[in-house]
């Protein structure tokens, strides 16, 4: 057996989205064993957070997932608000929803672009990356930055939305809903793409639950689980939206879940703009913010799945301990399960189909 196999190292130079290595053992072109090797971009985000105040943590904690920077910050502000006793005003909650959903679209479009390259469909790289610019422009109107927004703060959001934002956002969403129909024809229902993705990397419902998959990977296996519906936070219960669920558990199902989320995110943005109340956007205290003694836990649905923070405070301006639970880390166990007994040529389709973000997993 030992003579017959070949050990191949995929990475660590950037297989898609950050430094990460897959050690693959091959027999012919069938994968016999897989060993994911994370840790190349570990920076100790949790330890660094213990030396920074609650505000200083904001630009630093969004660095692990710059592509979904509001998604990783959302549970942090929810948890630290409990400790700092600064509840957000209602208008801020709706602005947070708009920003989080814009970020989900930006993140999914980046994923879609790279997925197009990985299955050999160059058009699907150029279209989403071009159209992503529309949503980045919208986010820039609100937050003033293109990728790392640093927009959520404990007690609300940093500024109100500009007056011309609602019209522009609805215009962009209406255009993009039509545009996604074109994506479906050229990519999602294209027979060549179906051949590459349907029936590849099947994750059964029981396995998905046992291996701890979250987010779109779990919903692609037929489990209807979404933190936005299960434990509604930040006024998500006022908004009427569906959770796309596909039963097959293959790469194509996971793609379709993300496509469905793009439609739903635009639906949520439009509803949030309509239902947004007027009023202040921030509860503020002067001086350095000090947490009350205690602990807080918050979890939200980020673009890649369930993001959770557990913060312990001992009454100082710094968190005593900050634990960050990220969805990408759970993909590592899925990878070992899915890649065995597959062809080498299917590795990119399965690997990036999970939307694994190495920097987020390494923290």
């Amino acid at each position, binding site marked *: 057996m030992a003579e017959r196999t070949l050990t191949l190292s995929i990475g660590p130079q950037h297989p898609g989205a950050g430094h990460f290595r897959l050690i693959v053992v091959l027999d012919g072109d069938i994968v016999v064993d897989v060993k994911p090797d994370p840790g190349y971009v570990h920076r100790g985000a949790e330890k660094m957070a213990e030396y920074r105040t609650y505000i200083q943590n904001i630009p630093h904690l969004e660095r692990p997932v710059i592509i979904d920077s509001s998604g990783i910050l959302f549970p942090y502000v929810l948890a630290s608000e409990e400790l700092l006793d600064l509840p957000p005003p209602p208008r801020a909650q709706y602005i947070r929803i708009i920003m989080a959903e814009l970020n989900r679209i930006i993140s999914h479009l980046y994923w879609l672009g790279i997925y197009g390259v990985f299955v050999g469909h160059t058009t699907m790289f150029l279209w989403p990356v071009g159209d992503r610019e529309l949503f980045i422009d919208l986010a820039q109107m609100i937050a003033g930055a293109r990728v790392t927004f640093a927009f959520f703060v404990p007690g609300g959001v*940093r500024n109100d939305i500009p007056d011309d934002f609602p019209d522009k956002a609805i215009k962009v969403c209406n255009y993009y809903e039509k545009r996604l129909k074109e994506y479906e024809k050229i990519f999602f229902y294209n027979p060549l793409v179906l051949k590459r993705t349907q029936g590849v990397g099947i994750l059964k419902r029981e396995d998905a639950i046992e291996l701890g998959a979250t987010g779109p990977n779990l919903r692609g296996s037929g489990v209807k689980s979404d933190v936005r519906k299960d434990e509604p936070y930040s006024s998500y219960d006022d908004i009427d939206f569906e959770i796309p669920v596909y039963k097959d558990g293959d790469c194509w199902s996971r793609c379709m879940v993300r496509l469905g989320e793009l439609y739903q995110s635009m639906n949520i943005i439009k509803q949030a703009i309509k239902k947004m109340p007027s009023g202040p956007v921030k509860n503020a205290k002067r001086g350095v913010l000090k947490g009350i003694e205690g602990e807080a836990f918050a979890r939200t649905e980020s673009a890649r799945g369930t993001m959770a923070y557990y913060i312990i405070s001992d009454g100082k301006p710094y968190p005593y301990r900050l634990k960050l639970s990220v969805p990408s880390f759970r993909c590592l166990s899925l990878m070992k399960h899915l890649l065995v007994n597959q062809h080498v040529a299917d590795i990119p389709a399965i690997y990036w189909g999970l939307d694994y973000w190495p920097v987020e997993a390494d923290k």
Partner: protein
Amino acid sequence: MSLAIDLISAINQAIKNLFKRRITLRYPEVNLDIERGYSYDPKAQVGIAGYKGRHILHLEKCTGCSLCAIACQNIANCIAMVKLDVSYPQNKKSIFPQIDYGNCVFCGFCVDACPFYALFMTNDHELSSTDKKSLIMSPLQLSIPPVKKKGLVQLEIDDRGPYHK
């Protein structure tokens, strides 16, 4: 049969796209119209939406309190207070912030920290240079407002797709 239909509709979609407008911004010739920079109202304790670009320092309002430098600690550590040969009545020590754009992350928390309406951000984002030293901007350089650019365009959307006009 359905395979053939799906294939034809995919190719058809690609051909249709040939007649769409391009979203590409021809950047050095034209610039995106960004109205204003991020600013902050210390009385209401809330920001005013805008682009987070290079800072602008109002020398006649800065008191040299160093709150911006303290806010930047542990984030980027890019603000240093330096002494200038100018005299303003509100700034007895004549110290003003100097910003190192090699380290700045453009989070804007220094703007939130300023209680005297002295430090804001502008829409200027063209800060690249060939050496590290010229990335460090002195208070006098920071006090100059950015040059208004020519060839400003905005993103428009019509039936033939988004384009810049």
